[in-house]
């Protein structure tokens, strides 16, 4: 472990003391970050306390209500929270991607208006990027925003909009110039209650409906909701994707979820049984579990190394593409192995005969297939690695 000097260790004591006083023990291992319903009781208390302290967004500037911590301090806070099973109750797209982007590109008024409610976990954001014809080729987006003096008039269709049915606000890429592909895109914000917005939930292969089609018909977006310059949205939109990849791959404190659930070797011993030496009875499966566990370890070490090497607050880089691909592979492999280990019992869909953890595993396995698709597919990440990091050219 790198040596952070004397002062940060003092922070560790401070964090530990604050958590001892403010973390309701009933919230141990409870994940509130993605819950849809408004929290009550201890959950409400925990969320409010973290929101007021700004520690749900530990490195964000204090002026907007953030924690104002250094990355080293934030890591310590994270470790202290992990030690007692405290999960960050502040989350969602506002925290993971929109907030950091607005802090970089937003106007002073925009930051003052939008950052504090994200810090307190009050406003849910959704991402209006993808369209039926613009997925990997995001810059092909057609949703158009016409300049009407004091507002833009937005018309078009977005798709795969996660959480649109619950969201309060949307950050959205729109076309403001039909003649320039990348330089004709702008980054705008709108309230999801604005007239002209219709969302239709779409069911996923795991049976849940976490995303929607979003239809925009004559939606009026005030001019003050343009982030950055007109036709300058592509740069901002791409930057946001780096933040998205960073958090998807476990950067910024979400690494814990890769180790969620029972360790695979333990699961295998339960479902498959053990040989005379007490090892997983199926040698073929055992070898693959070991390989996976080692790969997971390598990934975790890389996350830690990247965190230790990142100096200051310059945020994610192209290297997040490596992390996103490595992290999603580890997650998908784990789910496949878990389902295989549990045999038919690991394929329960509903009804009697299955434990809750078994049913959840199936849905996670299927849902996890999205991790190599959203936030830029695995193929797109590989293209970024090949072109932006390795300098390999397209064939001419």
């Amino acid at each position, binding site marked *: 472990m790198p040596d952070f000097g004397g002062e940060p260790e003092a922070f560790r004591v401070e964090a530990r003391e604050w958590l001892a006083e403010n973390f309701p023990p009933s919230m141990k291992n409870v994940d509130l970050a993605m819950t849809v319903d408004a929290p009550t009781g201890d959950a409400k208390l925990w969320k409010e306390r973290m929101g007021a302290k700004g520690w749900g967004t530990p490195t964000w500037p204090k002026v907007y209500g953030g924690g104002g911590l250094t990355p080293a301090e934030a890591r310590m806070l994270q470790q202290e929270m992990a030690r007692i099973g405290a999960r960050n109750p502040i989350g969602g797209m506002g925290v993971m991607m929109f907030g950091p982007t607005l802090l970089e590109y937003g106007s002073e008024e925009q930051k003052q208006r939008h950052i504090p409610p994200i810090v307190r976990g009050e406003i849910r954001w959704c991402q209006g990027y993808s369209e039926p014809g613009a997925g990997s*080729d995001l810059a092909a987006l057609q949703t158009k925003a016409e300049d009407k003096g004091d507002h833009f008039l937005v018309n078009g269709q977005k798709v795969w909009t996660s959480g649109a049915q619950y969201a309060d606000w949307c950050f959205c890429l729109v076309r403001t110039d039909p003649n320039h592909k990348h330089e004709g895109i702008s980054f705008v914000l709108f309230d999801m209650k604005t007239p002209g917005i219709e969302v239709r939930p779409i069911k*996923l*292969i795991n*049976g849940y409906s976490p995303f929607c089609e979003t239809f925009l018909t004559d939606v009026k977006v005030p001019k003050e909701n343009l982030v950055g310059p007109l036709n300058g949205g592509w740069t901002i939109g791409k930057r946001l994707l780096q933040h998205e990849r960073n958090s998807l791959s476990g950067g910024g404190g979400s690494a814990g979820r890769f180790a969620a659930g029972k360790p695979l070797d333990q699961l295998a011993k339960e479902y*498959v049984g053990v040989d005379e030496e007490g090892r997983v009875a199926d040698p073929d499966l055992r070898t693959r579990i070991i390989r996976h566990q080692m790969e997971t370890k390598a990934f975790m070490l890389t996350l830690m190394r990247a965190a230790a090497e990142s100096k200051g607050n310059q945020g994610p880089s192209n290297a997040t593409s490596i992390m996103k691909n490595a992290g999603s592979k580890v997650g998908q492999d784990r789910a496949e192995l878990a389902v295989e280990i549990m045999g*038919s019992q690991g394929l329960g869909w509903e009804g009697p005969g299955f434990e809750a953890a078994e049913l959840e595993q199936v849905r996670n396995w299927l849902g996890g297939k999205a991790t190599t*698709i959203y936030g830029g597919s695995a*193929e797109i990440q590989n293209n970024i690695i090949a072109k932006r990091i390795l300098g390999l050219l397209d064939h001419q």
Partner: protein
Amino acid sequence: MAVLNEEQTMLRDSARDWVREKAPVGAFRRMRDTAAPLGYDPAAFAEMAQMGWAGVVIPEAFGGSEFGYLSLGLVLEEMGRTLVASPLIASSLAAASALVMGGSETQKSEWLPKIAMGEAVATLAVDEGPRHDPLRTALKAEKTGAGYKLTGAKTFVLEGMAADLFIVAARTSGQPGEAKGITLFLVPADAKGLSREQRHLADSRGYAALNLDEVELGSNAVLGEADNGADLLEKTLDRARVGLAAEMLGMSVQAFETTLDYLKTRVQFGQTIGSFQALQHRAAKMFTELELTRSCVEAALTAIDNDAADTPQAVALAKAAAGDTLHLVSREMVQMHGGIGMTDAHDAGLYMKRARALEATYGSTAWHRDRWGRMAGY
């Protein structure tokens, strides 16, 4: 593709036409969405039986056509393409094979004609846990004056909700883990003391858990020889496994073709996504795997038809190869379709779910690899 005789070509073509006309994936989807209680559409199965598909491995004397396993494999491959749910594997292949190989004249004449006509559904009740392991059979069969008394449980029985007859693996002697002491029994679904409950798996078929509570049977319920049923069971399972492999092959072919079509039509960055080498090479790899898998599946079906000595190895290879290939292709189907592949409205997820269920049935890929290695002396 194996060299087919005229009968086989006709059989395959009629299956292909019927599937195209009567049983596209949409038919499976309707069955799933209406939560059809049996896990398949009985009217569709009646049509299949009418066309003779339920009697392909049953001797003519008992109402079948005795066309053989390669022939039935061709039908199953076509069914696999569009995820047709039916008792063809459980009843017309597995249970029918057990009766043909091990049944007395009386048992055969009682059940085989009905199975061949699709009037009765029979199935194997083997596994007692979530992972396939026939030797671990513990369900107890105690000798009584007139016959046997069976007590114990079975689970994940294919078509268990529809079955009229269960071929139950029970233990008449020895310990779980031993081959000696396993006996197969014919247990009618209406036997006193037998109850069943549906198990809903991700692939929406009609699995059941069985409970046998002092089910009384006569000695004439024994299929084959008492205490020495393990061999018959193994041979029966191998016939079922190769049927599963044929279904998996058909699914893989269709999943691949649907994906290939998408690669040729979906445009991003001003070109079809199939123009990207990153995807081209993966499509080429899948196609190669499909060719290898077809060889393995056809070889195993032929080995059974020829009663070849190396049938078990051939079957293990086919089931393992088909398992790996189907996982590869169904995963790529989702991935290469992007967001739309993740939706319930698209077919990709249906293939992925069925792939996992088939993998877990009658021995996973890993289990068959290990089995193959043992048989080869590794």
